């Protein structure tokens, strides 16, 4: 991992079009500003991780429940 030391208001440029700014440092927290093209997806890691964990758990029991739901044939369903 590349580790860079930055001060408040310093920036990091990634791939020429993503600019990360250290907006504020205060009490062990850092506010980060991100300027990026609209087609770049940005998530807080812990939120994304929570969805990953939930999907893994749901995927594990899905196979079993699938059989129960589809037993009796596959038909149209109104959405």
């Amino acid at each position: 991992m590349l580790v860079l030391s930055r001060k408040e208001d310093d920036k990091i440029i990634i791939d020429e079009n993503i600019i990360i700014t250290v907006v504020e440092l205060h009490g062990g927290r850092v506010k980060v500003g991100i300027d990026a093209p609209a087609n770049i997806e940005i998530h807080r890691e812990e939120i994304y991780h929570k969805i990953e964990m939930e999907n893994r758990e749901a995927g594990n029991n899905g196979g079993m429940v699938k059989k129960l739901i589809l037993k009796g044939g596959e038909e149209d369903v109104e959405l």
Partner: protein
Amino acid sequence: MKLKCKNNYSLRNGSEEVITFFQGIPGFNDQKEFVFLCSKDKGPFIVMQSVEEENLAFITINPWEVLGDYRFEISDLVKERLAIKSLEDILVLAICNIRGRLMNMTVNLAAPIVINYKKRLGKQVVLENTDYQVRHPVFSVQSKLGVQKCLF
């Protein structure tokens, strides 16, 4: 197998029914193709089945069955990724999870599955700054669903 929505569009048998998730879904980024299977007499649930991995399937539901006033914004990024021209082209589902008893089933309203069925593209959209829960109870007081309606 068909999946019929309000405007009478059907996903039919054959290769065209495959929905491509270019990024997979979080936790399963290598699973890029899913089919959607349903059975009318088994309640409102729709199975989201991985094409590649037979044992990988998710139970999904139309989120408005659970929460009538469910709302979220389809961002420009999602519109672009899914080539969405009109909101009429999309279907929205949410992944359910069962822990132990069926009564305890929850649905992930914080990361809906959005499908452009015209282009056959799908994406699980991780909502930012949302109050919706990853584990929203399916059979709650405000839910239209009764557990007895879901004939497992």
